[in-house]
C-alpha cells in the first residue's frame, strides 16, 4: 500500500513550483507538521508565513497577500479552516475574489478518536454554499498533484480538502487522467452509478468490482470537483443507470449527495441513495473503523447499490 498521504503531494508540487514562481506563499496556523509542509517552511522560509493558532488571521492575511499579487496557499486543519474562519473565507476570499487556495488538512474523520471538535463533516456544505468558492476533494496523491498544478494556473478562490492518512493509489504517475472541473470515469456499467469524492472514491471503485462479480455493472465517477459539480458527467452516468449511489466522508446534508440528487432530480429522475456519515457525533475510532461501522467501505457501498437496484 502507498504510504504517501495526499498532503505530502501538495508539498512536493509547491516545492517544485516555487523554484520558478516567486509569488507562491504558503501559510500555516501552527500546522506545518500536520500539513506535511515543514520541508517547504525549512527550505523556503521567505515564501512561508506562520500565523500561529489564528485561523481567521490565516485567511485574512492570505487574502491581503493575494490582493497584492501573491499566490497564497493557506493550510490548516479542515475542521478549523472551514468553520472558525468561515466568514473570512466568505468575505475576504470568495466575495472579494482573491486568489487564495484554502487547504483543509486532516479532513473528514481523519483525526479519528479526537472527536467531533476535530472532525470536518460540514466543510463541503459550508464551502459549497459560498458564491465564487470552488470545492475539491482529490482522491489520491497523483490526482492531488494534478489539481494543485491546475489551481496554480488560475487566479480564483478554491477550497481543497485532503485526508490525514495515506490512501491507496487509484491512478499512477503515468496514468492519471485529469481535466479541470470534470469528473474522472473509473469504469462504466449500465446498472448503477457510484459517484464518490475524496477518500470514498477508492472503496467505491472496489465496490464496483464486488458488484461485477455478481453480474451487476457499475459506473464509477471520481467527482473530485464537488463544486463546480460536473453535471454532464452526473447526467450521463445517472441517465445510463437504474439507480445512483453517492458516497462521501461528510454529514448527510448539503454535500456531494445533496448536489448529485438535485442534478438527477431535475434532469433524469431516478432513485438516488446517499451514503454519508450520520447527523450525529461519529463513533470513536480510527478512520477505517469509523468507515467500516457506517458501511462506508467496499462491502457497504456494494450492499447499498444492490438494495437500490431492488
Amino acid at each position, binding site marked *: 500500500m502507498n504510504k504517501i498521504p495526499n498532503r505530502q503531494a501538495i508539498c512536493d508540487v509547491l516545492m517544485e513550483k516555487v523554484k520558478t514562481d516567486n509569488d507562491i*506563499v504558503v501559510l500555516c496556523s501552527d500546522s506545518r507538521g500536520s500539513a506535511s509542509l515543514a520541508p517547504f517552511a525549512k527550505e523556503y522560509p*521567505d515564501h512561508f*508565513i506562520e*500565523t*500561529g493558532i*489564528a485561523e*481567521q*488571521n490565516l*485567511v*485574512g*492575511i*492570505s*487574502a*491581503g*497577500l*493575494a*490582493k*497584492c*499579487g*501573491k499566490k*497564497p496557499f493557506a493550510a490548516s486543519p479542515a475542521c478549523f479552516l472551514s468553520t472558525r474562519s468561515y*466568514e*473570512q473565507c466568505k*468575505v*475576504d476570499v470568495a*466575495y*472579494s*475574489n482573491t486568489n487564495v487556495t484554502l487547504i483543509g488538512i486532516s479532513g473528514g474523520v481523519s483525526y479519528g478518536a479526537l472527536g467531533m471538535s476535530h472532525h470536518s463533516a460540514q466543510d463541503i456544505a459550508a464551502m459549497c454554499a459560498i458564491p465564487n468558492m470552488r470545492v475539491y476533494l482529490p482522491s489520491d496523491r497523483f490526482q492531488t498533484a494534478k489539481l494543485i498544478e491546475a489551481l496554480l494556473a488560475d487566479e480564483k478562490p478554491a477550497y481543497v480538502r485532503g485526508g490525514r492518512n495515506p490512501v491507496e493509489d487509484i491512478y499512477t504517475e503515468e496514468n492519471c487522467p485529469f481535466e479541470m472541473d470534470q469528473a474522472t470515469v473509473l469504469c462504466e456499467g449500465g446498472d448503477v452509478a457510484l459517484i464518490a469524492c475524496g477518500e470514498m472514491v477508492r472503496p467505491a471503485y472496489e465496490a464496483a468490482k464486488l458488484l461485477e462479480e455478481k453480474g451487476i455493472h457499475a459506473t464509477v465517477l471520481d467527482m473530485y470537483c464537488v463544486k463546480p459539480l460536473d453535471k454532464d458527467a452526473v447526467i450521463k452516468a445517472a441517465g445510463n443507470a437504474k439507480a445512483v449511489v453517492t458516497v462521501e466522508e461528510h454529514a448527510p446534508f448539503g454535500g456531494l449527495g445533496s448536489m448529485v440528487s438535485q442534478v438527477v432530480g431535475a434532469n433524469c429522475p431516478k432513485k438516488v441513495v446517499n451514503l454519508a456519515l450520520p447527523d450525529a457525533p461519529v463513533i470513536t475510532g480510527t478512520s477505517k473503523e469509523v468507515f467500516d461501522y457506517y458501511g462506508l467501505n467496499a462491502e457497504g457501498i456494494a450492499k447499498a447499490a444492490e438494495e437500490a437496484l431492488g
Partner: protein
Amino acid sequence: MADLKAMSYDLRKNVVDMIVEGKGGHIGGDMSVIDTLIALYFDAMNVGPENMDDPDRDRFVMSKGHCVEALYAVLAAKGFFPIEEVIANFSKFGSKYIGHPNNKLPGIEMNSGSLGHGLPVATGMALAGKMDARDYRVYTVMGDGELAEGSVWEGAMAASHYKLDNLCAVVDRNRLQISGNTEDVMAHDDLHERFKSFGWNVIDVADGNDIDQLIAAFAEAKTVKGKPTVLIANTVKGCGSSVMENKAAWHHKVPTAEEYEQIIKDFADRKGALS
C-alpha cells in the same frame, strides 16, 4: 490645509444627500471618520485614479465598512467616480453603490462589512510589500466598537511579530456604538496601552476631526521603523452638526426634512467660520 477643511463640509453634505436619497446609511460614523479619509486620500497616500493599478500604490482597507458613504464621498472627490451618480443611486435596486465597500468599484481594494476583517487583510498586504521589497504603505481604519472582535487582535499580533512598519491602522475613537457608549458596551479606555503591549507604535490624535493633526500623525507614522503604527483618532460621532454630534441615535438615522435643513446650515456655518 484650509482647503481640505473646507472640502470636508462639502463632502459631509454629499454623504447626507446620499443617505437621504438612499433612505439609509451610517451617518454618525461617516461624520467622525471622514476627516481621516480626507487626510489619507488627499495627503498621506499616493493613490488616485491615475495609478490605481500600479503595484507601488498605497493600499487602503475600510475595515469599518458600514461607513462606506464617507468613503464614496472621498473617492468621488478624488475622481474615481462621479458623486452625482453615487447620490442618485446609493442603495437603490440594482445599484453598484451598495451599503458596504465592494471592490468591483474603482478605488476599492477589498470588500468589507463584517467587522474585524480589515487589520488581518491589511497585514497580508503589508507582508506582500515586504516580501516584494516594494515601498508602498498600507492603511486601514477600524471603529472603536469593532475592537471587540477577536480577529483584530490576531492581526495586531501578526503585524507586530512581522515588524510591519509599512502598516498604519487608525481607530476612529468616537466613543459611541449602536447600543450606546463604548465604555458601557465593552470598555476600551486603555486602548493606548493595549496596542503598545502588542508591540505597536501608538499615536494619540487629540482631535481626530482636525485634518492638520491627522496629516501630522500620518507623517510621523512614516518615520517609525520596525513596528506598525496605530493612530487613535479621538473623534466626534456625527461631527459637523449639533443635530447629530455625540448622539448614539445617529448611528444610522435618516434626517427628517427639518433636521436636514439644520444639518446643512451647520455645515455651511462651520465652513464659513474657517475663513
